[in-house]
């Protein structure tokens, strides 16, 4: 029997923001539907309503013309609506099989048969008896999908499923999703990646500021048209620059970087060597958890390693702490905005004072020079178009994009010779991403260098002059970005090899 899922006039209002504003959409089995939108467009709210996590203020959900009361995720499960969230709900130390058996009443023998059938049918290769922590992100996602499939779902909702996957894993996922679709499962695919919409989905609904702004067939759409609908304004296209770096001097050089950790949740780094030229952007790609955290902390001086040589502007800095490195005109923008790069409970100007370089005079003779810090903060707020001019505001009231602008502003206003940033646009909306990309390109134009550690391949291709991939703590060959394609990166990020023999 075909499935027909309809949401009618759904509204959900949070204090100060309308998350869903009279949303009406219809989905029918046999097709893959994309739900496209920026961060905060209301996709997640709608999906949470469909999966029973929150209930709407207004409006109804119909499944095959029957009105559904979805008061809890269990209601959604009972009505055969399955959901795979972006962040996995798995117990890392339990085996795959144990994870799958947690929320069923079936006895283990039957369950194992059922799971094996699914594995065979969809060509999944997962060892059921190893702990989940040994699985790759793609395999973990498969476990989540199997968990849904065990309930014979009519509807399967995927929330930004590819954010943690390699190119290969993404391809595999798409093949599986198409198979599910052919079998009559209705698939709703939430994303902000335009290419995926075009290559996977049949129909696309675009949301903006809580409203559905367009519903169309994907074959009638192009990346540019979808992007315009999603952002609601013409996107200024950032051109990949073509810098001539041949005659530029090397300003940063890392030799024999090794790091061994006793902590099983940290990645060891093995013999990493690279250099960065003046005005160059070196991109370091990789799936998260392959050593980027450790690499960033060693480059910033938060972790000091012995035997490593880091030369910056002809000086050995490997034994210096972050503050001392800043004095040599390095700047750092870590991935974790909220608990590392800034403290939400601190006021804006206090967060600015974290980058306390010698010439700033923020702290003269050990005393706080509040006036100076506030003046400096005001300048950052205007120069980097943060949408407030109140330096006394607690940083927790800034949106992710504005907080990141503040952090980048704080790091860049000292005119550093080298900026090291790690996932600078993680979780931001398109407007903020564009702003940050432009800023990063601008500093390269001003002959300043950047090291961009990122899990976003598109971003790396857009900004980098040369790219290397980090996989399990080892760095690949560094390639000029003209040579690099998303596919090549995907292979390397997944642990494959692209060099023949």
């Amino acid at each position: 029997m075909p499935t027909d899922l309809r949401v009618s006039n759904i509204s959900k209002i949070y204090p100060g923001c309308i998350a869903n504003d009279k949303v009406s959409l219809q989905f029918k089995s046999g097709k893959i539907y994309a739900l496209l939108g920026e961060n905060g467009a209301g996709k997640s709210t709608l999906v949470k309503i469909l999966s029973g996590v929150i209930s709407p203020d207004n409006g109804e959900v119909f499944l095959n013309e029957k009105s559904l009361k979805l008061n809890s995720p269990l209601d959604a499960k009972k009505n055969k609506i399955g959901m795979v969230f972006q962040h996995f709900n798995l117990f890392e130390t339990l085996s795959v099989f144990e994870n799958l058996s947690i929320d069923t009443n079936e006895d283990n023998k039957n369950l194992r048969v059922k799971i094996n059938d699914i594995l065979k049918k969809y060509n999944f290769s997962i060892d059921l008896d190893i702990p989940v922590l040994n699985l790759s992100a793609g395999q973990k996602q498969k476990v989540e999908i199997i968990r849904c499939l065990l309930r014979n779902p009519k509807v399967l909702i995927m929330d930004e499923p590819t954010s943690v996957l390699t190119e290969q894993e993404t391809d595999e996922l798409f093949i599986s999703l198409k198979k599910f679709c052919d079998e009559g499962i209705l698939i709703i695919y939430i994303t902000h990646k335009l290419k995926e919409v075009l290559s996977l989905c049949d129909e696309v609904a675009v949301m903006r500021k809580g409203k559905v702004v367009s519903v169309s067939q994907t074959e009638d759409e192009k990346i540019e048209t979808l992007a315009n609908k999603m952002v609601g304004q013409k996107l200024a296209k950032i051109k990949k620059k073509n810098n001539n770096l041949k005659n530029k001097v090397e300003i940063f050089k890392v030799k024999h970087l090794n790091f061994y950790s006793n902590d099983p949740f940290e990645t060891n780094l093995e013999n990493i060597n690279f250099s960065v030229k003046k005005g160059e952007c070196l991109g370091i790609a990789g799936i998260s958890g392959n050593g980027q955290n450790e690499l960033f902390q060693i480059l910033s001086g938060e972790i000091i390693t012995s035997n490593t040589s880091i030369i910056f502007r002809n000086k050995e800095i490997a034994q210096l702490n972050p503050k001392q490195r800043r004095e040599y005109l390095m700047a750092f923008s870590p991935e974790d905005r909220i608990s590392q790069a800034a403290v939400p409970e601190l006021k804006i100007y206090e967060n600015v004072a974290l980058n306390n370089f010698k010439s700033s005079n923020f702290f003269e003779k050990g005393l706080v020079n509040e006036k100076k810090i506030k003046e400096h903060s005001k300048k950052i707020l205007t120069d980097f178009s943060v949408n407030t001019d109140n330096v006394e505001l607690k940083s927790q009231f800034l949106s992710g994009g504005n907080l990141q602008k503040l952090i980048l502003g704080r790091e860049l206003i000292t005119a550093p010779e080298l900026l090291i940033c790690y996932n600078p646009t993680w979780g931001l909306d398109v407007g903020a991403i564009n702003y940050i990309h432009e800023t990063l390109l601008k500093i390269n134009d001003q002959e300043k260098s950047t090291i961009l550690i990122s899990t976003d391949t598109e971003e790396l291709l857009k900004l980098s002059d040369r790219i290397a991939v980090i996989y399990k703590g080892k760095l690949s060959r560094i390639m000029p970005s003209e040579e690099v394609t998303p596919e090549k990166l995907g292979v390397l990020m997944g642990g494959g090899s692209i060099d023949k023999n």
Partner: protein
Amino acid sequence: MIKIEKRNDVPTTLYFLTPFIAIFLTIIGGGIIFYFLGFNPIEALKFFFVTPISNLYGFSELLLKATPLCLIAIGLSFCFKSNNWNIGAEGQLTFGAIVGGGVALLFYDQEGFYILPTIIIAGALGGMFFALIPAVLKTYFNTNEILVSLMLVYVSKLLLDYLVVGPWSNPEGFNFPETRQFSNSARMPLLFEGLRIHAGIFLALLAVMLSWFVLYKTYLGFQIKVSGLSLKTAKYAGFKGKTMILVVFMISGACAGLAGVGEITGPIGQLHRMISPDYGFTAIIVAFLGRLNPFGIIFASLIVALTYLGAETAQIFLQIPKYTGQVFQGMILFFLLASDYLLFFKIKILSLKKNDLRH
């Protein structure tokens, strides 16, 4: 089903108001306990909280007890604000008193203006040294400062025990476990004739002023604040984490040492086993009740000092053991933590229907 969620923004006014709510609830709770013990709760509470300070002598006793509490809590606030859990202030107080008392005993038959300052400095250095032990072990050997600082309390108490019964015991003291009386030059000057309140209170007030200045106006204070909120950020900003741990422990130890010296050169006048009724532990409650804020700590130390006095009065008039004071201190901490929990988290009760448990 019960769901607990973090509140995103807690109003500052409410944050400083909750200690008052905790005190209010403590008084109610105390009344209930008195009722079940068979006393008229209103009357008993009056004996506990009003009678002790109804005359000038009582008020002087209140300030006398609040002085060490305030000093120690000020020191602890440096540690707690920067995420260092020094709970061994009692030991640092004792060790400070041993070192200060040792100096006082050297001068037992001498007079001179220089004697008291020397004792004070020696006591502060003693406390500082004793606090450095858990700090150094934490920074260089990764030990847990909670355990080390706590266990060192017993080390210093036993050392004091040994000294007062052994080498330092009063040769003319008929084998009582106590030292000689200190000379007059080794005693804190009294502020008023006939009252026990002494000059040590100025040390406490000085500590309040200085700590306010350091915490809110200096680079060290800024580093302490950031480290307390996020150690990751402190590391990222390149603060010298190890140095800071050593510094806050030294400040904390010095304050506790000063409190110890204040006791032995003030009301006690010699060394014996019972130089402190657990001021070092009670000051932890004072620090949190005062919200780690220097001026809040003044207020909190007065309140908690009152529980000491109230317990003594209650023992005299109601014949209940003076340990009820500790019951009250415990209740203050309990209600403070409980109201803090409700302040920072909200509890949601979600309806759960019977058949929801089945699929």
